[in-house]
């Protein structure tokens, strides 16, 4: 999952080596990443879930997708 997420992030920005480092996606890139995460992992992201904790780092994205896929 981590490598898949890194690859999806890399479609827009170079994914940082440090999982805690900020990715720095801009608004439109976040929209596209959200859709790619939904398609890839079969999840549905809600507006209230697009917060820095979930989307600002690779580590945050991995934890978020793990949580979403675990409660499907």
């Amino acid at each position, binding site marked *: 999952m981590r490598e898949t997420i890194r690859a999806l992030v890399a479609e827009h920005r170079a994914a940082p080596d440090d999982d805690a480092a900020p990715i720095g996606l801009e608004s439109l890139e976040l*929209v596209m990443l959200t859709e790619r995460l939904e398609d890839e992992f079969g999840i549905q992201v809600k507006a*209230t879930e697009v917060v820095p904790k979930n989307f600002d780092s690779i580590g945050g994205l991995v934890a978020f997708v793990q949580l979403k896929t675990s409660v499907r």
Partner: protein
Amino acid sequence: MKVFVPDRIGVQLAGTGAYLPADVRTNADLIARGCPLTDEEIVRLSGIRTRHVAAPHEATSDLATEAATRAMTTAGVTASQIDRLILGTVSPDHLTPSTACFVHARLGLGPIPAFDLTASCSAFLFALENAARAIATGDSCVLAVAADVRSRWLNPADRATSALFGDGAGAAVLRAGPLGQGLLGVGLAVDSAGVKSVYVPAGGSREPSTAETVAAGRHTIVMSEGPQVYLAAVEGMVETGVSLLKALGKTFDDVDLIVPHQPNRRILDRLARVGRFAPEKLFINVERIGNVSGATCAIALDEALRTGAAKPGMRVLLIAAGAGYTAGAALLQL
């Protein structure tokens, strides 16, 4: 969500009308004016290729008057028959008085109530709901209009908003009639979690206009949480649509045509996916006129009726969501 279902007096859709300014701007036109996106990016991100922009001499009331006149002509009613004018807009001619007062004057209406309401991109649904309630309590003929000239509040260099909006107006004449035809039900809601999702920071009582606010560019639309707005728009439209249909004992399967608010094409694709209905049910014109804010649904409904996409006998669902967040849905039996 608050649902209103006419149960004593029916609310008939007697006629619709729309007006789009003559100036059609392509993505290339916007790029020449400072839009920092490429044509390919605009199309990929929004699906929008052109939008109409009001001429310098045109204000929101001018667009609204033209759409209202066309709706009255279609409905076969004259100014003296209108009991009430409700105008939804977030881009008024002036902060005071209401834009409805200018439209009232231009249409030559009698001494009847005329007022603005503000519900951003859900404005036409809010106007319809208020019109339906007015008919339920005694009005015979109500003009519901939505009009916006968002181009006056756009920063041409803003990536998030500069290519999305267009100007225009739409209107409907609603008349009292038999139950079971016309407006079957309408529902509205606000989720104030999105109160600053799409907003104009300055120019109101919170941050009055000064030379500094103008210099800082605080009089144009700010949409700093685009991804949240994108997702919330779909959630708002699906939730209000489902809630209204449920209140009426129906589902998306019972709807022949869905006329949605059209912020951009990606949102409409997602709408069908999340709502789990066939995308072919959607009436889409966003690629030609962009997001016309509160007027979008009214313009699309008029176009659907004029082109035959919406026909007598069909059940048509209008759904919208907008800044605030506001949301609304209305089910029509044509």
